[in-house]
C-alpha cells in the first residue's frame, strides 16, 4: 500500500494506492484522483509552466505552459528547449509556440495576450 497526497487540485486528497492489486485508489474525492494515483506510481507526469522571451511587449517575459502533462523526467530538458524560444508581440492566449514538445504529445502554448 502506498500513500500519496493528490496534486490534481487544491483539495489535496490523501490517497491510499494498492500497488499490489492493480493500483486501486481509495481516499480520492473524484475520478481524477484515481487516475493520478495510478499514473504517479507507474509514469509520473507534470504540466510544465514557465516563461519565454518576448520582444515589443509591455514586459520581457511571456508566460507559457504545456497543454497537457509531460513525463516528470523531461521537465529540465523541456526548460532547455524554452531557453531558445523568442516571441514577438502580439501573441494570443492559446497560440502554439512549439508543437509536440520533445515528442511528448503536448504542445507549448502562450497563456497571456501580449
Amino acid at each position, binding site marked *: 500500500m502506498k500513500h500519496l497526497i493528490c496534486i490534481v487540485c487544491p483539495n489535496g486528497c490523501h490517497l491510499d494506492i494498492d500497488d499490489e492489486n492493480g493500483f486501486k485508489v481509495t481516499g480520492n474525492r473524484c475520478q481524477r484522483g484515481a487516475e493520478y494515483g495510478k499514473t504517479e506510481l507507474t509514469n509520473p507526469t507534470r504540466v510544465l509552466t514557465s516563461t519565454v522571451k518576448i520582444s515589443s511587449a509591455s*514586459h520581457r517575459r511571456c508566460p507559457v505552459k504545456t497543454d497537457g502533462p509531460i513525463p516528470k523526467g523531461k521537465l529540465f530538458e523541456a526548460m532547455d528547449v524554452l531557453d531558445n524560444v523568442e516571441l514577438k508581440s502580439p501573441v494570443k492566449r492559446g497560440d502554439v509556440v512549439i508543437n509536440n514538445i520533445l515528442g511528448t504529445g503536448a504542445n507549448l502554448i502562450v497563456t497571456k495576450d501580449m
Partner: protein
Amino acid sequence: MKNYDVVVIGAGPAGLAAACEAYQNGAQKILVVERDKEPGGILNQCIHNGFGLHYFKEELTGPEYAGRFEDMLKKTDAELMLDTMVLQISNDRQVTMMNPRQGCFTVQAGAVVLAMGCRERTRGAIGIPGTRPSGILTAGAAQRYINVEGYMVGKRVLILGSGDIGLIMARRLTLEGAKVLACVELMPYCNGLNRNIVQCLNDYNIPLYLSHTITEIKGKRRVEGATVSEVDENRKPIPGTEKYFDCDTILLSVGLIPENELSRNAGIKIDPRTKGPVVYENMETSIPGVFASGNVLHVHDLVDFVTAESQHAGAAAAEYCKQKTEGKAGSEPCIKMVCGSDIGYTVPQYIRPERIDKSVDVFFRVRRNFSTSSLDVTSGGQKLISYPRGHMAPGEMEHITLPKQLLSKAAGGAITISAKEVQK
C-alpha cells in the same frame, strides 16, 4: 463631480469578478480603478497552474484565469481606469483618485467595492537578526522579477516560511537553474497547500524544516550565508541546533497582510484577526454601501473562492444602488459569529438573518492540524448542527453552509463555531 453606480477599487481577480457581477445585477455605470498598467493583479505573475478548478472546472494558469475575466469585463459597459491610484474614500462614498492624465479628482459612488488585495510581510515585520545585505526578497517580489521582468534573483537560495508563494518559488527557481537549499518554517506545520509540498518541494528533493527559523543572516554587500536553528514549543531558538547554509539569496514567504489603508482612513471597522474589514453576510462593511471582498477582506488560498466572494459583493453593491435606502442600520436583527475552540476567525463576522435567502456560507480557518474532525455549531450552549470533516489544516480555508432556518434558533444573538478532533 461624476456619478457612478458602483466604483470597484482594484482590478485583480476580486475587482474583475465584482464588477462583472454588479453589471449582471443591473448596475449601469461601473468604474473599475486599478493602480497598475494592466488588469489581473497578482495573477499576472502567478504563471503556474491550478487556478479555476472550482469556477471553470478546468486547470488554468494565473494569466489565463485573469484573461478570462478581463474578456468578461470587456463585454460589459464597465469603465476600466488603469494607472490610477485611489487616495481616499469618504464615508458618504466619494472616491478621490489620481493619475498622470487627469490629475486628482473625486467621483461619487452609489456603492463601493473594496478589492485592493494584500501585500507581503517583509523582513522588518518578523525581525531577523544579522546584517542587511542585498539578496533578501519577499517571494512575491522574486516571482515578479523572474516571471514578468526577466531577472534571475540568485543561485543558491534559502526560503524562509512555507506559504504557497514560497513553495511555488522553490520549484520555479529550481526549474530556472538555481539551487534551492531548503525551506524553513517556524511553525510545526506547513502553511501552504499539501499539493504544493508534493509538487514543489518533494518533486525536487528540497528539504522542509518545520519548527526551524533563520537566526542569523551573514554578508556585507550580498547575502553570504544564513544560520538556521530549531525552535522549541514557544518558538524560541534552541542553542546547539544551528545549521549553516551557504546561500546568496533568501526569500521570505512569511504571510500576507490585507491592504486596508484606504479602509482604515474611511473609518471602516477592521477585524484584528483577519486584518480586513468586519463584514455582514453580503460583504457589506461597517459603512453602509461599502463592500469588501477577496484578499483585502481575508487572505485566501484559492482564487476560485475570491471570485465567488467577490461576485457576492458585486451583486450586493448593485442591489444597494437600486434600493437607494440607507438600510435600517442597528435596528435589524443581527447574529454575531463567535470563534469557538481552534477557530481563528470567521467571514462574515455578522449575519442579518432577514437578508438571507436560503443559506449563508461562513468561511474560516482552524488554528491547528486535525486528522479526523468535526465542526460544531452551537448557540447558548445548545448544539445546532455538526459537520463531520476529515483532515483540516490552518493552511487550508474551511467553510460551512448554514441553512436559514438554523439561524432562527440562535440564542442571544450569537452562534459559535468550534473544531474538535474525533476518534476514529
